[in-house]
Each structure stands twice: as C-alpha cells, then as structure tokens.
C-alpha cells in the first residue's frame, strides 16, 4: 500500500533532516549521519509516527524504471514534522557541537537532550548561553557574552527577556549569573577554580 502524499513523508539515511523540518547539521560525516538517522527513527517509532511499507521492490512495470530509496523506505506521519521537541533536540545537538559525541547519536542520547531541552529556561536565555559555550575558547562568561550580544537571536520564538528587535542584548554580568545558576542546577559544570571561570555542558 502506498503512503498517501500529504499524510506521510518518506525519509532515508540520505535525506531525512529537511523532510522532518529539522535544520541541517554541519560537520556530520556519513557514518554519524546514519547513526543519527537510526536514533531519530527509534525516537519516532516510540512516538508511533513511523510506518514501514515493505522492502523496496525491484523495477516497476516494463514501461518505467525507478530510482527507489535504497533499503526499506520509512514513511513518517506529517505530524512528526510539527513535533517541536524533536526540532529542539536536533537544534540543541547542533548548537552544543555534539556532532563528534558518540552517545548523542542513540535513542538514549536523544532522550538525554530532550531532558536538557525541558530544564533550560529559554525565556532567560539559558538555551543560547549553553549553546554558545561550545562556540568560544575559552568558554568563559565574557567570551559567551561577546559572541551573543548584538548578534541575531538564536531562538527568536523563545520570548526571551534579552531579545530586542531580533537581536540579543545579554551582557557579561547576566551571562555570568546565568552560568553560575546553571552550574548549581547541574546543567553545566565549572572547569576551574580561579576566575575567569570556564564552563562545559554536562551531558
């Protein structure tokens, strides 16, 4: 039975991020991409959003030849495209620079990221602060403020208090206070004992 257009989208390891409405992940080699694909499929299976329509059948009638999606095509219900948590998870995976992190590419890894997504208070800019830690060296409050302040807001839909006219207005002291609070809650950890303090995300 064919998947009806409009109800399902077909994904494959070669092409799955865009059909699912997820952003592209830079720096992801093919093997890691396949691992991520498998993890996402497991996640969607858990949500009951995946159907398999049987293995690819060779050829068609003798009046046409096809380039079929290799392997077994997976049909994902269109509601998966609107699934906000998956989008947040993948965005965080890229934002945290976890493309080299092996554990992130399993169902358990995605679930860990899902928990992280749920505890970050996006209205206070915590999501962007956590992501910026992986973009700066050294990962200090000043460096994070330097990269965020004045730049386009990374998550404009989050109703963050630091968003003004599409740009981030967070400053150094606000970042420092935020990081201290995140460390107290176990979301990040302090890497050294002497200022300027450096932080890393706890995964």
């Amino acid at each position: 039975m064919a998947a009806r257009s409009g109800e399902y989208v077909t994904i494959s390891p070669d092409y799955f991020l865009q059909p699912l409405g997820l952003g592209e992940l830079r720096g992801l080699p093919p093997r890691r991409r396949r691992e991520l694909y498998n993890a996402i499929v497991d996640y969607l299976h858990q949500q009951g959003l995946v159907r398999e329509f049987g293995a690819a059948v060779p050829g068609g009638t003798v009046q046409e030849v096809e380039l079929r999606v290799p392997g077994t095509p997976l049909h994902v219900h269109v509601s998966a495209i609107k699934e906000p948590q998956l989008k947040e998870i993948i965005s965080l995976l890229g934002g945290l620079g976890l493309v080299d992190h092996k554990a992130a590419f399993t169902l358990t890894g995605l679930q860990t990221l899902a928990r992280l997504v749920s505890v970050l208070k996006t209205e206070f800019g915590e999501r962007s602060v956590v992501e910026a830690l992986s973009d700066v060296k050294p990962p200090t409050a000043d460096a994070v403020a330097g990269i965020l302040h004045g730049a386009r807001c990374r998550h404009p839909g989050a109703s963050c208090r630091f968003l003004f006219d599409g740009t981030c207005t967070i400053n150094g002291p606000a970042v420092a206070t935020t990081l201290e609070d995140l460390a107290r809650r176990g979301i990040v950890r302090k890497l050294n004992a002497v200022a300027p303090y450096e932080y890393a995300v706890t995964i």
Partner: protein
Amino acid sequence: MAFDPWRDIEERPTADVAGKPVDVHTRPAEGSAFVYMLNDGVAHETMLEAILERLRRIRDASSKRVRERRFNVWYGTTPDAAGDLAAIMFPDRFDYRAWRRLQDLDGLPGYLHQGSFLVAELDGGPIARYDHGTITGYLSPTAPPSDGPADVQWRSATVVVPARSAERKWMLPPSGRASAWHTGETWDANRLRLLGFVWHLRAPGTYERLRLLTEKHFGIVVREDLGAADSRYGVLRMGFLRWSDFAIPVGVFLRGDLPDDLKYLVLAHELSHYALHFPLLYLGALVDDIARSVPEAAATFEAAVATHIDHNALERQADHFMSHFLIPARYDVQRLAGVFSEMGRQPSAAEWVWRFLQPLLPGAVDEGITWRNLEAMTTLAAEDLAALDDAPTTLYARVLKAAVERVEGLEHDPGNAIAAGLDELQATFDEITRIVTSMDNEEARAVLRQRMAKETSDISASSPRDMQLDRYELLPAVALESGQLARAIHLVPAADNPGGNEAGRWVDRHHPDQPAETIPGWRELLYDDVAIRLYRQEAWQPDPAST
C-alpha cells in the same frame, strides 16, 4: 559585482558587548600567507601593530593606484609537528606596487616562508582592514574601544563560514536536438548525443542546467511531480504510443521536495537508464498497447523480462554511467593516484573518488580537506570504502561504490548479460508480434496461453503485477473465468473533466474521436472481461500532432 570575501564585509547593525561597531566577514577559501614559527614577536597584539604600520604605508603612498584599494587581513595560528605556526594572510591577487609596502613582513622574527594557503587551516580571524585610506583594527568583542592611535578605527569582527559547495561548471549543450517522440531509430541517435555530451563534461553541472538540456536537446520531459511520501526518488517513464509512427514520449519524474544536489543525481541516473535501457522500456510500451486486446502478450513479455533481465544489474549499470555526471570521464583518477603523494603516502584512486564526491553528495562530509584534518578525512574515507558491499542501503554508498568501480575499471555488464537479455526480449517481442499479426485476437490469445502454460504451471503467477502505484487507477474486470487474464481499456479525462474526477466523463485515449462516457457508462459498453485503467496525470505528454 560578486561578493569577494577578501575585500567585502557587511556592517552589523548592532554593536558588540563593549559598544564597538561590528564587521561581519565571510571566511575566504584561500589567500597568500606569511608563515612564522609562533613566538612573542608574531603574537596577535604585536602582529596587529606591525600590520597597522604597513597599512599606513599604503594609505600614505603618493600613488593613487596604491592608496585606492580595499582588502581584509587575517591572522591565525595552526599546530605543526615542530611547534605552533602563526600566519598573516592577504588576498591572492595584489598588485606589486601595494605588495612592496607589505613585503618586509618577511623580516619579522620566526619567518619561515610565503605561499598560498587555505584560510580554514587557521585558528583565528580578521585582524585588520584597509578601505581607501581608512584603517580598521579588530579587537575582541569584550575589549573596550582602544585609546590607541586616532587614525585607526577600532571594531570587532564576526565570521560567517560559508557552506561548502562543489565547483559546478556550466555544461556545454549537446549537439542537435531530439524530437519529443522517440523510436528505436531516434533513440540510437539520441543515445550518441547523450554519450557525446557526457564525454565533454568538464565538471559536474547544476540540476537546473541539466534539466534544461534534457528537455531542449534530448527531447525528454522533466517533471517534479512525485510527492514527498513517494518511496521513489525518480522514475523514467514511457508515455502513450503514437500509432502513426510507433513513437513514444519519454518523461523523467522526480520528487519535488529533494534538494538540487539530489535532483541532479536522480536526473542523471534516469538519463543513464534512457541511454542504456530504452529498448527494454520501448518494447514494454509496445506490448502494453497490444495487451489491451491480447493480455497474454503482456504476461508473456513480463515472464521473459523476469527470466532474462536482472533489475539489480540494470540499476548497477545505470549507476556506473551516472557516475560520469559527477566525476567526468576526462578525469584520469588512476593517473592522479599514481602521481600525488601526501606526507609520504599515496592516496588510492578509490580515496580520490571519495574526496571528489564529498561536496557533491547530500549527507557527505561538508568540510574541505586541509592539512589539519587530513588524518581524520583519510580515516573517514577508509571507513566508508571498507563499508561498501553488494547491497548498499544508502544512495551515498551506491554512488560511491559505482564511481569507485568505474574508476577501477570494473565491467559494468560482466559477460554482456544485460545485452544478451535485451536480445532475448527482442526475440520474444518479435514472436509475440508474429503471433498477433498472423491470426485473430482469440486465436492469438489461445496460442500465447498455451505457450505460457508450457513455461509455467500457474498462468496467473505471470500476470502483470500492478506496481504502478500512481500511474493509473485500475478498475478490475467485472468477471473473469479461472486463469483468464483481463483485457483493458485506457481512459483519460475528457476535456470537461480536467481534474480526472471519477464522477466525470472519460475518453478512450486510443479512440479520442468516440464519445466520452462516465465510468458506469463505460461499464455498460464493455465486456465483463475488460479492466479499466484511469490515467489522470498524463498532461506532460506532447500533443500527438506535434513533431
């Protein structure tokens, strides 16, 4: 004028956290570098002073030709076996009069050499900028505006790293133009046209250009009509036979939601099928037409296809030819592998293929290969090549395998099995047409039924399976005797039913002059053993009166 990352910047509307203006730079690909062993004499702050001094020379030059220019200057460090290196980078193209003002940078301590280098090799960013007499120095976003020399404007910089894309060149058009109506004879000429076109490729092209050339020169319609739910990336399809000359239109249908890189691959793959396998599809279309009245003809032909044609072999052969659209035939990859050496190691031809394909394939590595990541890339290539097997489960693996096999000289049709299979099908077709044209339909059906019974005990098992999930809707025959195959009528929407509504009127496409009827109306007119095919999506086909 095109954006030049060595000369152009954008000003960010918002200041940095210290209140300084911000310039947005795009990382250039490569530039000219002065390279040093990293030491205090070429650390960032010291180097900034040295650069500003030399930019002042350009600003204060007596010649307007020297003063009137703009360019960015980059600085960064990179690890090396002997210790960290520092490099200051300028645009490659720099006229000598201005370059003379910078040349004594080779006198700074720790100087090693000059040359062209990839900017991606450096950990660093813009350090200064010169723009028609204005000198800019870049500080970190948290540094306060400098109270240094007043002739320098102090800003900070952010860097945009462009997404890596492969160099795609404009494709030379093939010679001549094919008709939109294809026969065995015209295909022969068109196939040569396509082979010549592929031979002259200098680099991969773009999807839009290939699509244009396919429609204009190869006479093949290209449509992005497959939906996002379709489990096919693309399909090469024959249209309706034109009886006056037994010509047929040809179309390629693609999933419209695919990115252009993937559409290019898919279109190239289907064109490869056209070049290699049109006779199979053409015979199939001729038989399908005969089968309206003699359905046993289709069953006989499809049984022959099942016996003599290995669909996997057809796909492999098409992939093999398709690889020429990515790595042109003119690239002598084997010779390249024999000549180049990197750090005492010669990458194999297969590894070179892997490198060429990365920027072209969706889902492949998207960073360029530099000296810094060479080891990691070599490992990735080795892993991907070792994982290739006979049943690739991704398009990436399929394309890589086909390209490697082609470059390594593996036969794309070992033992000419496909060619022999096509010959068998031609013989089967000739036999079918001999039977059908030498006796009436009922006699022909009986003869073919007997022929099929000798070859298999279950006639229904060789009945054509309807795998055309969206080509047409099949309304089965009302009543069939045991083992009997259904004849068929092919209906297309009447002019007053453009949407193909089942409640509307339909026309027999083989007798368009006859009155249109509703579906129940057709049922009344037809014998019980006739199935109805409803074709809704055939507007792509050219007017039969066209040439």
